[in-house]
C-alpha cells in the first residue's frame, strides 16, 4: 500500500470525528470506503466497550482526595489515635511526635522502634521529670524569681517550675511569633522538654488557643508530604495526593483544577517544566526587549528606542533631544540632501549596505522579529483560550443560577433532566484549558520535527473546531429554547445533540491529551517522508480514539451509512446498527437507507 492510500485510510478513520465536529461534507473520503483495509480501521468498534470501560475506570480512579476542614481534622485525629495506641503514649505526645516527623505515621513507627530513646530526646518527650520538689509548699519561678504557691506554678514534663503568668507570657510571645510555637520547649535553656497543646490550652487566652489550634491544623497540611492547600484564592480546602501517582492533575472541591506537583493551574498535556518556562516567558521583560529590538532603532544621539510607524526617513527625536537624523543610516540629517539621494532614499545607507556594514544588526533585528512573531502567535492563542475559559466559567455560572431554572419552566422539565447542559459547559471549560496549554506545547515543540509539528497542528485544529462546535451549540442553540414563544418542541433533539457533542469532544480531548503526553510517539520522526508519517499517525490517533462510548458513536450527515454495520443519524449523529430503520436515539428515520 502506498502512502497515498494510507492517507485516505487515515482520513477515513478521522473523518468521523471530523464530520461530527465540523458538520461539513466528507464526501471526498467516502469514495474509498469500500477499500478492504477499512475493516482495520473499524475493528476497534468491537473492543470499544472494553476500552471504554478501561478509560472510564481510569478516569474514576482518583489518585487524590479533596479535604474539607472537617476531613482534615478527622484525618489528623485518626493519625494521632493510631500513633497513641501503637506506641502507648498520650495523644498530646503522639501529636508532638507526628508534628516532628512531618505527620508521617510510618516514619514515626520506623524511628520510634529503631531507637526510642533517641527519638524521645530529639523531640523532647521526657519520661520522668529532671527536677523534683517533693516537699515544697512554695516554688520560685525561674523567670520572675518570685515565690508562688504550687497552684500558681506549672511545669512541663521536665518539672522546671515557672509561674502561670510567666508561662502565659512565654507562650503567647511564641504563638505571636508564628507556627514555630508548635515546637515550643521548656524555657530552661538546658532543657528540651516539649510543650503540648494540653498545657497551652490550660494557660493562654482563648484567642491564642485558637491561633495555636489553627497552626496545628495548618501544620498537618503544610508539613505533610501528601497534602497541599488548594492554591485557589480564598479556597480553604486541601488535597491529599497518593504520592507516586503519575497524573498530577487534581481538582479541588471548589472546582479549581491544579497540578499537584507544581501547584500551577492544571496543565495537562504540558509538563511542569514547560509550564514554568512558559509562565516565566510570559512575565519576563525579555519579550518587551524583543519587541523593542525588533521594531525600533535607538536614537543615534540620546539612545532612546524609537519606533518608526509612518512618514519619511527624516526623523526628529522627541524633546528634549530633538536630534534630526536619517532612519536608514542613522546619520545626522544635516549631512543629507540632494547628494545623498533626497528624502526617500539614502545613498550612504545603500552604499554601506553593499559593503555589508549593516548586515549584522539587520540580521539580529530580523531574527528577533521572527522569534517575537512566533511567540506572539502562540501567546495570543494561549491568552484567547484563557479568556474564553473565564467567559465559559461565567456562562456556566449564569446557566446554573438563572437559565436552567428558566429552561426548566419553559420546557416543563425538572432541572435534574437538564444536567447535560451543565456537563456540556463543564466540558467546554475543561477543553479550553487543554487547548490553551496545547499552545504552550506547540511553542516548545522542536522546530525541526516537521512531521510531529504537522500532526500536532492537525490535531490541534481538529480540537479547536470540535470545541467551537460544542461551544456554539451550548451558547447559541440553547437561546432558541430560552427565548422563543412558544418554545420549540424539539428540545429532545437539542438534548441529544448537545450530549452527543459533549461526549465526542470529551473523548477527543482525552485522546489528545494522552497523545501529547506521550510526546506524539506515534509519529515516526525519523520517517523519510514526513507526509507518510503524519498520515500514519493520524490513523493511529483515530484508532486511539476508540475509547468512545457507543452512545457517542458519531459521523457526519454525508456519511450516514457505510458498509461496516453502522449508519449515522442525520439528526443526532448517533451511530445506529444497520438493521435499524429509525435512529435508536431520536427516532428519525434513516435517510438513503
Amino acid at each position, binding site marked *: 500500500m502506498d502512502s497515498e492510500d494510507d492517507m485516505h485510510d487515515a482520513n477515513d478513520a478521522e473523518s468521523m470525528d471530523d464530520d461530527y465536529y465540523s458538520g461539513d461534507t466528507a464526501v471526498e473520503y467516502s469514495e474509498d470506503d469500500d477499500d478492504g483495509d477499512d475493516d482495520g480501521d473499524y475493528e476497534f468498534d468491537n473492543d470499544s466497550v472494553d476500552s471504554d470501560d478501561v478509560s472510564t475506570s481510569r478516569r474514576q480512579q482518583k489518585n487524590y482526595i479533596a479535604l474539607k476542614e472537617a476531613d482534615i481534622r478527622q484525618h489528623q485525629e485518626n493519625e494521632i489515635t493510631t500513633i497513641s495506641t501503637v506506641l502507648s503514649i498520650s495523644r498530646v505526645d503522639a501529636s508532638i511526635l507526628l508534628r516532628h516527623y512531618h505527620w508521617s505515621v510510618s516514619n514515626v513507627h520506623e524511628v520510634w522502634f529503631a531507637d526510642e530513646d533517641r527519638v524521645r530526646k530529639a523531640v523532647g518527650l521526657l519520661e520522668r521529670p529532671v527536677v523534683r520538689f517533693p516537699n515544697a509548699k512554695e516554688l520560685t519561678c525561674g523567670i520572675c524569681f518570685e515565690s508562688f504557691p504550687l497552684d500558681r506554678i506549672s511545669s512541663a514534663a521536665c518539672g522546671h517550675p515557672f509561674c502561670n*503568668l510567666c508561662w*502565659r507570657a512565654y507562650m503567647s510571645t511564641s504563638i505571636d*511569633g508564628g507556627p514555630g510555637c508548635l515546637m515550643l520547649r521548656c524555657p530552661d*535553656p538546658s532543657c528540651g522538654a516539649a510543650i503540648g497543646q494540653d498545657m497551652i490550652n490550660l494557660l493562654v487566652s482563648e484567642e491564642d488557643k485558637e491561633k495555636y489550634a489553627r497552626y496545628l491544623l495548618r501544620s498537618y497540611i503544610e508539613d505533610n508530604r501528601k497534602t497541599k492547600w488548594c492554591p485557589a484564592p480564598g479556597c480553604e480546602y486541601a488535597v491529599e495526593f497518593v504520592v507516586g501517582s503519575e497524573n498530577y492533575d487534581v481538582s479541588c472541591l471548589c472546582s479549581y483544577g491544579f497540578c499537584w506537583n507544581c501547584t500551577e493551574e492544571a496543565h495537562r498535556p504540558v509538563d511542569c517544566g514547560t509550564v514554568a518556562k512558559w509562565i516565566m516567558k510570559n512575565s519576563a521583560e525579555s519579550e518587551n526587549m524583543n519587541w523593542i529590538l525588533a521594531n525600533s532603532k535607538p536614537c543615534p544621539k540620546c539612545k532612546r528606542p524609537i519606533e518608526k510607524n509612518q512618514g519619511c526617513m527624516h526623523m526628529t527625536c522627541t524633546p528634549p533631544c530633538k536630534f534630526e537624523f536619517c532612519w536608514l543610516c542613522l546619520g545626522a540629517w544635516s549631512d543629507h540632501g540632494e547628494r545623498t539621494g533626497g528624502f526617500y532614499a539614502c545613498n550612504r545607507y545603500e552604499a554601506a549596505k553593499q559593503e555589508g556594514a549593516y548586515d549584522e544588526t539587520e540580521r539580529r533585528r530580523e531574527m528577533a522579529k521572527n522569534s517575537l512573531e512566533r511567540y506572539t502567535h502562540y501567546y495570543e492563542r494561549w491568552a484567547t483560550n484563557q479568556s474564553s475559559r473565564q467567559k465559559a466559567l461565567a456562562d456556566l455560572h449564569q446557566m446554573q443560577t438563572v437559565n436552567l431554572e428558566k429552561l426548566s419552566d419553559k420546557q416543563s422539565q425538572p432541572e435534574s433532566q437538564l444536567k447535560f447542559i451543565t456537563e456540556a459547559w463543564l466540558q467546554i471549560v475543561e477543553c479550553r484549558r487543554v487547548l490553551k496549554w496545547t499552545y504552550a506545547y506547540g511553542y516548545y515543540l522542536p522546530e525541526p520535527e516537521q512531521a510531529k509539528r504537522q500532526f500536532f497542528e492537525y490535531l490541534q485544529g481538529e480540537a479547536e473546531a470540535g470545541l467551537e462546535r460544542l461551544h456554539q451549540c451550548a451558547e447559541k442553540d440553547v437561546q432558541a429554547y430560552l427565548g422563543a414563544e412558544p418554545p420549540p418542541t424539539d428540545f429532545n433533539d437539542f438534548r441529544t445533540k448537545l450530549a452527543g457533542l459533549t461526549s465526542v469532544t470529551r473523548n477527543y480531548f482525552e485522546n489528545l491529551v494522552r497523545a501529547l503526553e506521550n510526546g506524539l510517539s506515534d509519529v515516526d520522526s525519523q520517517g523519510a517522508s514526513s507526509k507518510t508519517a503524519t498520515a500514519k499517525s493520524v490513523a493511529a490517533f483515530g484508532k486511539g480514539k476508540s475509547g468512545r462510548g457507543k452512545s457517542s458513536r458519531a459521523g457526519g450527515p454525508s456519511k450516514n451509512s457505510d458498509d461496516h454495520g453502522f449508519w449515522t443519524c442525520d439528526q443526532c449523529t448517533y451511530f445506529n446498527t444497520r438493521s435499524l430503520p429509525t435512529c435508536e436515539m431520536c427516532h428519525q428515520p434513516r435517510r438513503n437507507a
Partner: protein
Amino acid sequence: MASPSQASLLLQKQLKDLCKQPVDGFSAGLVDESNLFKWSVVITGPPDTLYEGGFFNAVMTFPSDYPNSPPAVRFTSEVWHPNVYSDGKVCISTLHPPGDDPNGYELASERWTPVHTVESIVLSIISMLSSPNDESPANVEAAKEWRERRGDFRKKVSRCVRKSQEML
C-alpha cells in the same frame, strides 16, 4: 504578664541582687538612674584570652516585654571580635528574638528564653569573648583574620585592650 511593670520589677530585682552579690568578671549599673531599661555593664576581659586585662563598656537595652524578648547589647568600647559588629552590637544566638527562627530549627538551648537574666547574658558574652564563633560572623573581616592571620588579629585585639584601659 509581660507588662512593663513586670519587666521593671524583674530588672529592679536583678539590679538589687547584682549590687548585693557582684559576680566575677563584670559590674553592672544603670546608664541613667531613672531608666531601668538601659543598663551599663563593664566586662573584664576574661583571663587567659586575648582580651585579658581589658575593660569593655557595653550598654544593654531591654524591651518593654522583657523577659519574653531579649535585650540588645552593644559595646561602646572598641571590640575587635568575629561576633561583634563594627558598631559594637553583639551577635549571639542567645540574644536572637524567638521570632527569628519560626521553624524552631535552632536548638532550644541556643535561643532566647525568658529565664535569661543580666547575669546569664553577660556570662554568655564573656564566653563568647574567650571562644569566638567564626561560623556565622557578624564582623567578617575579624573572622577571616581570626582564622587565617591570628597574629594580626591578636595585634588588633591588644590595641583594643590598651584603648579600653586608657579610657578608664
